[in-house]
């Protein structure tokens, strides 16, 4: 985080604000702690980011941080699953630290961040290893972190083990410039439609999918609507004499 603030410091100090100093002060309200992984540095307020902000909030600097990697022990059955997964990967001649980028434990949920080239192998192991046995995949959900350069697109899988009554999450990222993630249809056929949906909305190309076509939007649609750089659209409407702007043109507070 110090890097991000260091490089941005000159910019902020033109307002008489020194973000590095202010962010590290402990008496500020809304301090979110230093842990976690920074995905974005947000400036100002009300979504006014193209200059001309007269609100007086232009100097606000907010670091958006997602929960970061956890250290052992993870607690409960989390360690057991992590041990079994690492053991199974080693048996296959893979170094766990090359496969599992990081492990996050947050809000009682376990997340493995997987390097995309190993995703298929990991899913196969999680499904077939008797000690793991995650037989049910609840599909894939895409997330577009527009400001997290180099890892904008995330595909997130929730795997449920009915045998052991457990739920884990796999997270895979890909850059916008190379939006390819291996398809899991060969391991979990249920992901067929889910991957088509995520391709349709985020433009993530699932390599190895039997027929990756649009599923919700019309076949000739341009663009991928749930990406953060795709506008919501809409028209201003009149209500009781006032013009109400379209939802994506209204003032935002975050």
């Amino acid at each position, binding site marked *: 985080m110090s890097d991000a603030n260091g490089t941005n410091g000159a910019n902020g100090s033109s307002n008489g604000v020194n973000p590095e100093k202010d962010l590290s002060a402990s008496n500020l309200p809304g301090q979110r702690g230093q842990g976690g992984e920074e995905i974005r540095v947000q400036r100002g307020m009300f979504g006014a980011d193209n200059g001309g902000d007269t609100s007086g909030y232009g100097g606000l600097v907010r670091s958006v941080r997602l929960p970061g990697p956890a250290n052992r022990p993870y607690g409960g059955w989390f360690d057991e699953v992590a041990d079994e997964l690492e053991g199974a990967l080693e048996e296959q001649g893979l170094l766990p630290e090359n496969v599992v980028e990081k492990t996050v434990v947050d809000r009682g949920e376990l997340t493995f961040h997987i390097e995309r080239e190993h995703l298929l192998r990991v899913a196969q192991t999680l499904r077939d290893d008797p000690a793991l046995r995650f037989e049910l995949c609840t599909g894939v959900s895409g*997330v577009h972190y527009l400001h997290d350069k180099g890892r904008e697109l995330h595909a997130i899988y929730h795997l449920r083990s009915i045998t052991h009554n457990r739920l884990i999450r796999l997270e895979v990222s890909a850059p916008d410039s190379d939006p390819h993630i291996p398809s899991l249809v060969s391991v979990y056929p249920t992901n067929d439609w889910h991957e088509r949906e995520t391709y349709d909305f985020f433009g993530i190309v699932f390599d190895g999918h039997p027929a990756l076509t649009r599923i919700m939007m019309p076949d000739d649609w341009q663009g991928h609507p749930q990406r953060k750089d795709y506008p919501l659209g809409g028209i201003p409407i009149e209500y009781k004499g006032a013009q109400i702007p379209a939802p994506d043109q209204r003032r935002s507070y975050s």
Partner: protein
Amino acid sequence: MSSTQSAAAAASARETTEGTVYTVTGGDWDEVVESATRADDERIVVNMGPQHPSTHGVLRLILEIDGETVTEARCGIGYLHTGIEKNLEYRTWTQGTTFVTRMDYLTSFFNETAYCLAVEKLLGIEDDITERAKIIRVLLMELNRMSSHLVCIATGGMELGATTIMIYGFRDREMILDIYELITGLRMNHAYIRPGGLAQDLPPGAVDQIREFVKKMKKNLPEYDKLATGNPIFKARMQDIGYLDLAGCMALGATGPILRSTGLPHDLRKAQPYCDYETYDFDVPTADSCDSYGRFLIRLEEMRQSLRIVEQCLDRLQPGPVMVADKKIAWPAQLALGPDGLGNSLDHIKKIMGTSMEALIHHFKLVTEGFRVPPGQVYAAVESPKGELGVHAVSDGGTRPFRVHFRDPSFTNLQAMAAMCEGGQVADVIVAVASIDPVMGGVDR
């Protein structure tokens, strides 16, 4: 086909003052008939839907048939896509309930609860939800399970030509919708369950009306048994139709009655309890026939179990708050219907306008700006009447969701349509799809 013909079949364009106008020509019926007679096999591709009364809304089935046998079946979906997930990213967390309730419109309370459980998990306030709010959530969800199953059984029966069971189903569902109307003001799309609790407490008379309903429903439920369960025509149409075994369910991610009809008693209410389901006394019915008939029996039995849970809820209800005490999350007003027909709280207005400037500012900020949710992601799942309804919610620390994804059971289960229908008769496609019970509002979102 010759090159001149294919050129004639393409759309030609001309420029007008209105812009480019495309004219689609060619493909006359004469040519279609001619090419069909030239074909040397009986292979016909039939589009069933999207506007077909027995395909549950705007589901399009593309069937390749050989005589009466379906050789290949595919689904076309997306006709009811309304971009709810994208819209959620432009509203506050509280406003989200108004959108999610419209996804699978037959299971509104499940959508709302799953969404609110996810938001509460992100906020870390699961333990602060009041007892009464949790009981009312369970109460409404179980009533909702019955009303959803009733629609499934009613429309499923009608598609077989059994209009009596359709009348019965909608008759009983009407009683449940009347209860919804009394409690939330609306028959559908309630937005009653909110992050932190409920929008309002139960109105006077609600408990009595639900007790009355339970009494009537106990009398009415055996009628479905008498009418359908032992009916030889009903059984002949449903048994061994829409077959999907346990391995198929696991591979295709099918949950709910489809999974339980293979004999596996997997129910999230038992496996991963939420809203204190572990304290209620109920059974998870299963069948081992893997077919439409088994799913019908399971739905019938689940309605009986839901009645049991509803009765337990009514016995447990104690007066108390229905919203978390945290003033940074709960909206301050206890609304009452004002003379203008809008919800108002005169006491609250008197307080913020007359005596407390800070309370006025707080109210304004909470309603227009919303509350902030700490960054992170969660997955919350509930057992909806159709299966596992999962919500993946991501926050970036702002007052709006960064991303909300609904894993709707109808969407996932509908993938099993091909596996259930291929190799069967055309008429059985209807029965198999009815036993999946897809609702396109949930499939397309």
